[in-house]
C-alpha cells in the first residue's frame, strides 16, 4: 500500500472564520478517510443556560451562532410556548417569520460568497457579500441591529415593525430581487461552475437518512424535509410557499436549492408584510406569568436545516436542562460519505457545500497537528489547488 498523506485543514486559517480541524488522509490525489477534531469552539452554552432565567436565555441562544441568531431563539421560543401553552398574537407571528426569512437570505448569500471564493470566483464572493449588505440594512431598519437581533421573547416579539415602515422595507426588498436573479443566472449559466460542482460530493438518499441530515443538504438529495412545512409554526401556514428540492445529490444541487430558496423567502416576506399591515399595531406579545414544570420540544428551520431545542422545566424561573441540536451537528457527519474517493482539489468545495457551522455544532472551536502528520499541506494550499482547477477548466473551455 502506498504511503498515506495526512492533510490537516485548520484549525486557524484565514478563510474558515471558525476554528476546526479536519484531517484528510490521502493516497495520491484521492481522499481515503477523513477525521475531525473539535473542542475549539466549545463554550458550555447548555450549562450557562441552566443558570439563566427564561428571558435571559434568549440572549445566550442568540449567540450560539452569529448567522443563525434568529433560528435558535425561534426554536427556543417554540419550545417555551409549548411548555407554557402560550398563544402568540398574529402580528408577532408575521414579524417572527419576516426576521427568520431575512436571515435565510443573508445566510445563503454569505454561503454563496464563500463557495464562490473556494472555487476561485472572487467576484462572486464580493458581489454576494455586497448584496448581503442590503439585507443587513433591512435588519438595521426593522430590528435596530445588523446581527444578533434580540427580537424574540416568550409569547411574542420585543419590537414592532410600525406600519409606516412597511413600504420602505418593501422597496428595499424589491431592490434585492433583481440582484438575486442575477446571481441565479450567473451560477446556472456558467459551464465552469457546472463542471466543478456536478457529480461532486454525492450524498445518496440512504446516506442522508442514515446520518439524519437536514435542511438544504437533505433537500438537494430529493428528501423534502422542511420543518416550516412538516411541523408548521409562526406564520408559515398562513402564507403561500413551497419546499424547494432537487434530485441532483451533488454540490450543484445544493447550490441550486439555496439560490431558489432565497427567491422563495423574498416572496414569503412580501406576503407577510402585506398581511401584517391588516393586524393591529402594537399587539406584539402576550404576557406570560409563569412557566409550569414540563417538557418543551421546539423546532425551527434555520438556513442550514432543522434546529431542535429541548427544554425541561421544573417550575422555577430557569431551565432545568436545555438541549440544543444545531443542523450542522448532523450535516457535518456526512463528510465521511461525501468526501471519500474524491480528489483533494474537490474536498474544499464539498466541505463547504454543507455550509458547516462549527459554533453551532459545539455550542458549548483546531489543532496544531503539524508535527504528527507526515507530509503537510495547509488549508490555504488546498484552496489554491481548488482555485487552480477552476482556472485550468476555464482555459480548456
Amino acid at each position, binding site marked *: 500500500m502506498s504511503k498515506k498523506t495526512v492533510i490537516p485543514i485548520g484549525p486557524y486559517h484565514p478563510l474558515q472564520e471558525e476554528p476546526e480541524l479536519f484531517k484528510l488522509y490521502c493516497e495520491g490525489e484521492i481522499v481515503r478517510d477523513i477525521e475531525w477534531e473539535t473542542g475549539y469552539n466549545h463554550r458550555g*452554552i447548555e450549562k450557562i443556560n441552566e443558570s439563566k432565567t427564561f428571558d435571559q436565555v434568549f440572549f445566550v441562544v442568540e449567540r450560539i451562532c452569529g448567522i443563525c441568531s434568529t433560528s435558535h431563539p425561534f426554536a427556543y421560543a417554540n419550545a417555551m410556548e409549548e411548555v407554557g401553552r402560550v398563544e402568540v398574537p398574529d402580528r408577532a407571528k408575521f414579524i417572527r417569520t419576516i426576521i427568520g426569512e431575512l436571515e435565510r437570505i443573508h445566510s445563503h448569500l454569505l454561503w454563496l*460568497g464563500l463557495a464562490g471564493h473556494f472555487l476561485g470566483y472572487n467576484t462572486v464572493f464580493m458581489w454576494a457579500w*455586497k448584496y448581503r449588505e442590503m439585507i443587513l440594512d433591512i435588519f438595521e431598519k426593522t430590528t435596530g441591529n445588523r446581527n444578533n437581533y434580540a427580537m424574540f421573547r416568550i409569547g411574542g416579539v420585543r419590537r414592532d415593525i410600525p406600519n409606516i415602515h412597511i413600504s420602505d422595507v418593501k422597496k428595499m426588498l424589491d431592490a434585492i430581487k433583481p440582484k438575486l436573479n442575477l446571481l441565479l443566472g450567473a451560477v446556472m449559466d456558467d459551464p465552469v461552475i457546472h463542471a466543478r460542482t456536478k457529480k461532486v460530493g454525492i450524498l445518496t438518499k440512504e446516506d442522508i437518512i442514515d446520518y439524519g441530515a437536514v435542511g438544504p443538504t437533505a433537500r438537494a438529495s430529493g428528501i423534502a424535509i422542511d420543518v416550516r412545512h412538516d411541523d408548521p409554526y409562526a406564520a408559515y401556514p398562513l402564507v403561500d410557499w413551497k419546499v424547494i428540492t432537487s434530485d441532483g445529490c451533488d454540490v450543484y444541487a445544493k447550490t441550486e436549492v439555496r439560490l431558489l430558496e432565497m427567491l422563495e423567502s423574498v416572496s414569503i416576506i412580501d406576503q407577510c408584510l402585506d398581511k401584517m399591515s391588516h393586524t393591529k399595531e402594537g399587539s406584539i406579545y402576550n404576557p406570560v406569568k409563569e412557566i409550569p414544570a414540563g417538557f418543551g420540544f421546539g423546532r425551527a428551520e434555520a438556513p442550514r436545516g432543522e434546529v431542535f431545542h429541548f427544554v425541561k422545566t421544573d417550575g422555577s424561573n430557569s431551565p432545568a436542562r436545555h438541549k440544543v441540536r444545531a443542523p450542522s451537528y448532523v450535516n457535518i457527519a456526512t463528510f465521511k460519505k461525501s468526501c471519500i474517493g474524491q480528489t483533494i482539489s474537490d474536498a474544499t468545495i464539498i466541505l463547504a457545500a454543507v455550509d458547516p*457551522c462549527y459554533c453551532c455544532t459545539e455550542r458549548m472551536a483546531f*489543532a496544531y497537528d503539524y508535527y504528527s502528520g507526515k507530509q503537510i499541506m495547509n488549508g490555504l494550499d488546498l484552496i489554491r489547488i481548488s482555485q487552480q482547477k477552476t482556472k485550468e477548466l476555464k482555459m480548456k473551455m
Partner: protein
Amino acid sequence: MSLGSYCFRKSLWVFHFGGASCNNCDIEILDCLTSRYDIERFGMQLVGTIRHADVLLVSGSINRKCRARLLKVYNQAPKPILVVAFGACGCTGGIFAEGNVFGGPVDTIIPVDAYIPGCPPKPEAILAGIVKLLNK
C-alpha cells in the same frame, strides 16, 4: 523614530484568530474586506499565517483548549506585533465568561494593545479602532 512606529507606518497585515466565538465577529471582520467597507484600500489585508502579520486580531471568548493555541500563535508572531481584542468576547469573555470551559479573557493570556468592544462591533467601529491604534 522607534522600531514600532516604523514597522506600522504602512500597510498592516492582519492575522485573525477566532477563538470560541459565535461567528458574528468573524463575519463582520470578513465584511470589512468586501466591497462596502473595503479595508484593503488602506492596505490592510488578512493573511494566512501569523508569520507575515503585523496585527493579531483575536475574536471570540477563549476556552481552555484555545488558550494554549493562542499562546503558541502569539509566540510564533514576528515582534513587534499589535494585538487587538475584538468584540465583547475578546475584551472580557462576554456572555460566555461564566461558562465552565472559559479560559480567561485575552488580556490575561497575552498583552493586548487595543480593545474594540461591541457584540459584534460594527465595521465602522473596526475601522475606528484600527485608526486609533495607528495613532497611538
